């Protein structure tokens, strides 16, 4: 690193405004920043803070015609040749800068890759467009780029299509594409938000390595303070389109100046901070479990061949057993595809299963339709995306009242009173019952879903990634509400999450799932302070710690992809045997 690194990009007094119903609204106000060569600048903030708009403004990709840059300059420096103001460039000249000098990675690697073109075609296309290399040379360069992002069998991957790759692979292809032309600036907009936590660790490490090799400057946009601590040299905290605080990463985390930064950092769930529950309940109280799951299997048949016979089977859940006591929170953790959501769906009656589900002492398998409906009243579910799980054409008051209507509880007036009380209880006002889901913020919508789940006074609430889609400060408040409701109503939670930090915060017991089976289960303290299975350890290690002083030097990489849960007929996966290592801490033997 040189003593005075040159400035590569500087933004002065940038304002972006969006035309809306009530005239123009500024989404970015008066933002100034400089980016030095080889530096990682993190722009952190919650949704609506204007961080993504800033990145789109740099790329000149603001959504037309609604948004425009109302004032300010964005200057890209080019060594001795001076600087160019990107805001004044026409589309043709801007196109030459995009990709070549400034590249961008988006959040969702599936949607930002063209699903009908092969990886190779998409890679070589941009190389050919910018460099004038021949097709063969461009292909060679594409292979090198794929190798640089540690994709195995790079040559044969060129012929694959995006849907044939896993999420982490796709994001690596995106990075390869962005870095193939060796740009000066790389803008990464929430590059790991859609990825599993262990994959996130790998992708972040890869970004760091590549940056070191090429001296690329990176603008990393994220809401995750853990990622910020892991990656940033400097940090900008944004809120409502304004810069709240700017400084070195170490300073921001150690000595935050602005109140908002302090709040934001306080809201971040941390592993091992001891912020969890004080009393850890005894798992021995078997007598009155609200739900018991024994040897649950969920398999989906895949049909193939000309006769549509079952040729392969997805073993989504393979022999899962656990029980939940009243007033207890059992967390089910694992990465995407591990079967945790399928387990929840089986419990909620959304997918067919084999095995036993006992709710309130009654086995669902032996019951008729009406009886099952009555038993299922005790199990309610809160989904991940509150907007998708509320009918957009119904008033929220009617939605919350609906469970009562279906089960024929209370008269119309009583129902109204009960719904109003529920609204007040979850921190909404009764007057808001008349509104439609789109008129709420994300956190409020999740409160509506919680009220809806509570309406029937269930004994068990399944929370399927229920806080993952929320901003950290909102997330902290919703988690607080869930804990409070548990104290008040004695409801048990099956809390499904991929976020170990959140899990540590809320759960009494933890079950870790991998490929459809539980690999480790025990009390929160057992699992977090004494993780015995290598996968559990890996999951805990992968969580970025919101403290730059404790930055990991190296993250253990998996050399192969996670195996698939899809298997040929007759090749059932091996059952893992769980053994007690003391105090009810169950661990699977290593395969």
């Amino acid at each position: 690193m040189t003593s005075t690194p040159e400035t590569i990009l500087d933004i002065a007094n940038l304002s972006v405004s969006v035309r809306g119903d009530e005239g123009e609204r500024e989404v970015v106000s008066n933002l100034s920043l400089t980016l030095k060569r080889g530096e990682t600048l993190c722009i952190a903030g919650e949704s609506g803070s204007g961080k993504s708009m800033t990145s789109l403004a740099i790329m000149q990709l603001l959504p037309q015609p609604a948004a425009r840059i109302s004032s300010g300059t964005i200057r890209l420096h080019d060594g001795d040749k001076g600087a160019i103001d990107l805001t004044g460039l026409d589309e043709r000249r801007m196109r030459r800068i995009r990709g070549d000098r400034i590249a961008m990675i988006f959040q969702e690697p599936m949607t930002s890759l063209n699903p009908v073109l092969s990886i190779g075609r998409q890679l070589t296309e941009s190389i050919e467009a910018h460099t004038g290399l021949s097709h063969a040379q461009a292909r060679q360069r594409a292979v090198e780029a794929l190798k640089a992002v540690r994709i195995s069998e790079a040559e044969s991957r060129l012929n694959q299509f995006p849907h044939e790759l896993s999420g982490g692979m796709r994001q690596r292809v995106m990075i390869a594409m962005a870095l193939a032309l060796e740009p000066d600036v790389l803008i990464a907009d929430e590059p790991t938000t859609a990825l599993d936590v262990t994959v996130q660790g790998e992708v972040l490490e890869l970004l760091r390595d590549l940056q070191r090799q090429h001296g690329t400057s990176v603008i990393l946009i994220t809401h995750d303070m853990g990622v910020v601590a892991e990656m940033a040299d400097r940090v900008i905290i944004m809120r409502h389109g304004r810069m709240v605080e700017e400084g070195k990463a170490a300073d921001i985390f150690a000595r935050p100046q602005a109140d908002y930064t302090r709040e934001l950092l306080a809201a971040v769930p941390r592993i091992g901070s001891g912020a969890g529950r004080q009393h850890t309940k005894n798992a021995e109280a078997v007598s009155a479990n609200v739900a018991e799951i024994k040897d649950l299997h969920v398999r989906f048949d895949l049909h193939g061949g000309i006769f549509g016979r079952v040729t392969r089977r997805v073993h989504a859940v393979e022999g899962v057993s656990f029980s939940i006591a009243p007033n207890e929170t059992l967390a089910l953790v694992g990465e995407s595809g591990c079967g945790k959501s399928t387990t929840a769906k089986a419990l909620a009656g959304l997918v067919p299963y084999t095995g036993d589900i006992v709710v309130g002492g009654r086995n669902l398998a032996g019951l008729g339709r009406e009886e099952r409906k009555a038993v299922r009243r005790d199990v309610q579910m809160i989904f991940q995306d509150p907007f998708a799980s509320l009918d957009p054409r119904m008033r929220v008051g009617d939605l919350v009242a609906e469970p009562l209507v279906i089960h024929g509880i209370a008269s119309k007036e009583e129902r109204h009173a009960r719904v109003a009380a529920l609204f007040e209880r979850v921190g909404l006002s009764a007057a808001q019952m008349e509104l439609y889901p789109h008129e709420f913020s994300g956190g409020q919508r999740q409160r509506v879903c919680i009220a809806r789940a509570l309406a029937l006074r269930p004994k068990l609430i399944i929370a399927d990634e229920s806080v993952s889609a929320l901003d950290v400060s909102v997330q902290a408040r919703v988690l607080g509400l869930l804990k409070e409701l548990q104290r008040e109503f004695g409801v048990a939670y099956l809390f499904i999450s991929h976020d170990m930090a959140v899990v540590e915060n809320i759960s009494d017991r933890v079950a870790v799932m991998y490929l459809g089976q539980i690999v480790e289960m025990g009390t929160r303290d057992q699992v977090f302070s004494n993780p015995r299975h290598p996968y559990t350890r890996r999951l805990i290690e992968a969580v970025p710690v919101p403290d730059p002083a404790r930055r990991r030097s190296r993250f253990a990489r998996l050399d192969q992809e996670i195996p698939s849960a899809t298997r040929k007929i007759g090749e059932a996966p091996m059952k893992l045997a769980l053994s007690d290592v003391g105090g009810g801490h169950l661990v699977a033997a290593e395969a």
Partner: protein
Amino acid sequence: MTSPIAPDLSAGQMPARPRAGVWRRLIRRRLALLGLVIVAIVVAGAAFAPWLTGYDPNEQMFDGLTIEGSPLPPDAKFWLGTDLLGRDLLTRILYGARTSLIIGIVANGVALLIGTLVGVTAGYFRGWIGNALMRFTDLMMAFPALLLAICLAAVFQPSLWIVAMVIALVNWVQTARVIYTETSSLAEREFIDAERTIGAGAPRILFRHILPHLLPTIIVWGTLGISTTVLLEATLSFLGIGVQPPTASWGNIIFENQTYFQAAPWLVFFPGAAILALALAFNLIGDALRDILDPTQRGRE
């Protein structure tokens, strides 16, 4: 820091005033009002036809033709002229509105109903019933609609109601296809899963949660269907299996007179304009209804 469970009341403010009824909001839109006026005129014309004109729709008047026996252009006596048999065109259009309204609304409505039922059932339940229904729909689609109508009309004794039923039986197919596709994608949405977890049964999910989302599609197909059905009736009349002459319908007025198109263009122009105006009117109302009935559009106008 604020209390950990303070409500986040940044959005979701109460609307300033209660919302007006559907009807009030409909007539507040200028184009929708225009559509309503046209429909009202057509309905009134059909209902009060005997009082609005002094002629009989089937009376072949001696002074309704020139000496050479060709139809008269519009004049003070015959406002829209006369047709090739010397009948008053205005009178025939007014009486023809009765037929065309029945075809456009009843036949089209029945087609829409069948199409929606088939589409929703197949799209929601899938399985063997869905397969059976959709393969039958495909079969109907592959079969030439006109040929089918001719067969059906030949089996039954042609009358206005039979013609309406024949048209309905031919026209539900496209609606079923479109509704099927939409229903099957709606059924995959998470809020439908959420409904199941609170114990909602199939009827509640179908009628309270899926049907409202299909409303825009149904309205669009309904308004498009009006002109299609009116014209199909005209085709059938032309082939002699529609509404039997001398009963007037807008379609058969056009077909009866099309050979005179060059000599007497008003004979095709006026009934054509009537069909167009009716279809346009329903389109305007349908468009406005679609927006008004969509609560997610609230506050985004």
